[in-house]
């Protein structure tokens, strides 16, 4: 009987072999073609971690012009690629080996998919001859990633590597941006690659065309007829670089603006027309302006449940004009009066032109009473916080001072939890791409690696991660990467010794039964000592009087990462709040305080 030899995919090339290098002839190897394609596409930075299946690729990277940053966990590579993409607008790239390396990327892929972040993930897989044999470190990452990526490829043939990689970049960056995975088998990386094919045909991939002029005309018609319109600005305007156009449209029409958690900074917080953030922890004026409107002009937003509250009571009097690059978003959650499919920037520019034409021809909408009303809410219900009952440091104060001291050009990356909400509330964002967070998936552990990626992409900017004590424990290993690779990020840990957001819900909805939400992490680990162990500067602060000096001290360090352990009150809560599943009408400005919205028109 003959035994079929199934090669162990992860170790096809023996040590001392040529690895990923060309074997004499003109053709490069698949691995070299891959790296060459990255160079051709202008990729400057890649975050990754090697392993058996990608050894040929790492051999080809040795000495390449692309800078590879060795992370400590692949999830860190994924979030770093996201932070890089979100801060620069370029496609972020991460790289992992087969099996566990690839599965470690899944959270970041899902996160990028929810928040439409353009990233390309490259993974190695076992040799194509070993696929399906449960070979060492084999995982079907193409299938695993299907529901959490814009697209995923498995490449088994060397001549398809270059074309697939450049197609992946094209898919990630065009249309509604998103994550694309390219899984390449080890034998394809090692074999000689014919690189004549530069793009895959992809007959089914269509990028959106220009917005229809009829839809734009109808949208403006509704805007002119409305009494209480609102511009509901979402993350799509950020990805489309449309902040200038948003501002034009807002100023031209005078319509009040709300910006979602994903869009903080797209329209300046300091602008008088800005009514704040809508949603579960939005401002009273942001929530009310959306809720009481009669026309919602949604610009690159997606009516997320965290924004709408209970759907059946959301903005009951409002019609919807929905501008989105993704046709499947239009009408997904609510019936839409006019859908404008197209890039936010182009669509808003067309709205501006049409509005100008109509008003020049005599149309004169009157929003004055409505604007006065919104401004009244904004005046009457400003964001604020009480001094903590336990006399400890107020987390909101720390965050407010961080924003004030580090200045308007600082990039902030937040974790997920109370500190994230406070960071969205108590720092003013006046420019796009200065607020990075995990909005759709809500991934604890996003902040540190995303800040790292942002700092790599924007080395001259100050980058602060505002992280929770819980979140920080999920990905702080990337501080080692930051130290070793010279990426001097700053981390403010808002240490309330709790999974604070969970604790807040338990306090409000589970009779203060704090099941597994309190962390003895005031001491374990000691974050300042941990920071030192990672080669960072470690600071600690637990008194309001020391906050400014501590932040200034952290700002002075620019050749090393800094971590500040802010030991804050354990009892602070995030307000305002629209409790999950309740109506926006029932927003609480502070605990059990319901705003008075006055008479409905």
């Amino acid at each position: 009987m003959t035994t079929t030899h199934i090669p162990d995919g992860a170790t096809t090339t023996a040590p001392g072999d040529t690895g990923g290098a060309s074997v004499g002839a003109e053709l490069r190897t698949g691995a070299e073609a891959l790296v060459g394609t990255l160079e051709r596409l202008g990729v400057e930075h890649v975050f990754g971690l090697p392993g058996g299946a990608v050894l040929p690729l790492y051999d080809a990277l040795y000495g390449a012009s692309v800078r590879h940053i060795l992370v400590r966990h692949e999830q860190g590579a994924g979030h770093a690629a996201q932070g890089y993409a979100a801060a620069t607008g370029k496609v972020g790239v991460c790289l992992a080996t087969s099996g566990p390396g690839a599965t470690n990327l899944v959270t970041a892929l899902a996160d990028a998919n929810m928040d439409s972040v353009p990233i390309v993930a490259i993974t190695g897989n076992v040799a194509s001859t070993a696929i399906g044999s449960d070979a060492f470190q084999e995982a079907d990452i193409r299938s695993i990633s299907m529901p959490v990526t814009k697209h995923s490829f498995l490449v088994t043939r060397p001549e398809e590597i270059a074309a697939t990689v450049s197609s992946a970049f094209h898919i990630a960056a065009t249309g509604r941006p998103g994550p694309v995975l390219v899984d390449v088998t080890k034998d394809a990386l090692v074999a000689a690659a014919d690189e004549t094919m530069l793009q895959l045909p992809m007959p089914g991939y269509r990028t959106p065309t220009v917005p229809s002029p009829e839809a734009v005309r109808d949208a403006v018609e509704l805007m002119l007829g409305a009494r209480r319109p609102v511009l509901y600005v979402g993350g799509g305007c950020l990805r489309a670089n449309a902040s200038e156009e948003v501002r034009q449209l807002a100023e031209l029409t005078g319509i009040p603006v709300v910006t979602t958690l994903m869009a903080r900074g797209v329209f300046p917080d300091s602008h008088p027309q800005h009514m704040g953030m809508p949603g579960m922890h939005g401002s009273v004026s942001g929530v009310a302006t959306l809720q009481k409107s009669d026309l919602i002009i949604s610009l690159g937003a997606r009516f997320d449940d965290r924004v709408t509250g209970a759907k059946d009571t959301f903005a009951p009097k409002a019609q919807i004009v929905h501008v989105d690059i993704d046709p499947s978003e239009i009408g997904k959650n609510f019936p839409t009066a006019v859908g404008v499919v197209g890039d936010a920037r182009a669509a808003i520019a067309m709205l501006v032109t049409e509005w100008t034409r109509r008003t020049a021809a005599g149309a004169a909408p009157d929003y004055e009473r409505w604007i006065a009303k919104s401004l009244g809410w904004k005046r009457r219900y400003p964001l604020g916080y009480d001094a903590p009952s336990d006399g400890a440091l107020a987390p909101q104060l720390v965050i407010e001072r961080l924003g004030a001291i580090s200045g308007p050009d600082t990039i902030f990356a937040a974790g997920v939890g109370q500190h994230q909400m406070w960071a969205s509330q108590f720092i003013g964002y006046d420019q796009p791409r200065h607020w990075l967070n995990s909005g759709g998936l809500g991934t604890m552990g996003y902040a540190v690696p995303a800040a790292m990626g942002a700092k790599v992409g924007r080395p001259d900017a100050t980058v602060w991660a505002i992280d929770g004590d819980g979140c920080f424990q999920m990905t702080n290993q990337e501080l080692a990467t930051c130290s070793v690779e010279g990426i001097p990020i700053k981390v403010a840990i808002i240490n309330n010794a709790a999974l604070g957001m969970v604790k807040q819900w338990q306090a409000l909805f589970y009779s203060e039964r704090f099941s597994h939400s309190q962390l003895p992490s005031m001491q374990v680990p000691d974050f300042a000592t941990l920071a030192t162990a990672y080669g960072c500067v470690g600071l600690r602060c637990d008194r309001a009087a020391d906050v400014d000096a501590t932040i200034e001290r952290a700002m002075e360090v620019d050749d090393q990462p800094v971590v500040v352990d802010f030991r804050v009150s354990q009892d602070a809560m995030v307000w305002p709040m629209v409790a999950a599943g309740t109506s926006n009408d029932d927003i609480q400005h502070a605990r059990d305080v319901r705003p008075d919205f006055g008479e409905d028109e």
Partner: protein
Amino acid sequence: MTLLSDYPPHDPAVPTAAPAYQPHTAPHDPTKGTTMSNDARTRHALSVLVENNPGVLARVSVLFARRNFNIDHLVVGPTEDNKVSRMTIVVNVNAEQLHKVTNQLDKLVEVIHIEELEDADAIRTQLWQINDNGPRPVGAMAAAAF
């Protein structure tokens, strides 16, 4: 020691036959908390041209599962172009859901073209005939529950 159930377990009694297949699903009870209209569901047949790539069937079915749509019938076969396959998918949804599911399908990179076919009921009948052979399912689920 008390056993929660007898050991060894009794032979499962022969389960009673499941009720006969009802081709028409009961009227859909409107989902709470949605402002979407819930007009009656009807059967629709979609002809979907896809790239003939490995994994494309998985991708389409993952999409249906992910978006919470149920597939009644699904047939995949070759076309005269060996790079292109055709899927015929029968779904039982209302007009709005149909719009949503085709919108989502259309976003898949490997989906080239979608068309709704006329006479979905006739197509379903044919698919039912092709598929209605082999062992009978009667009682299979009930037996496994013992």
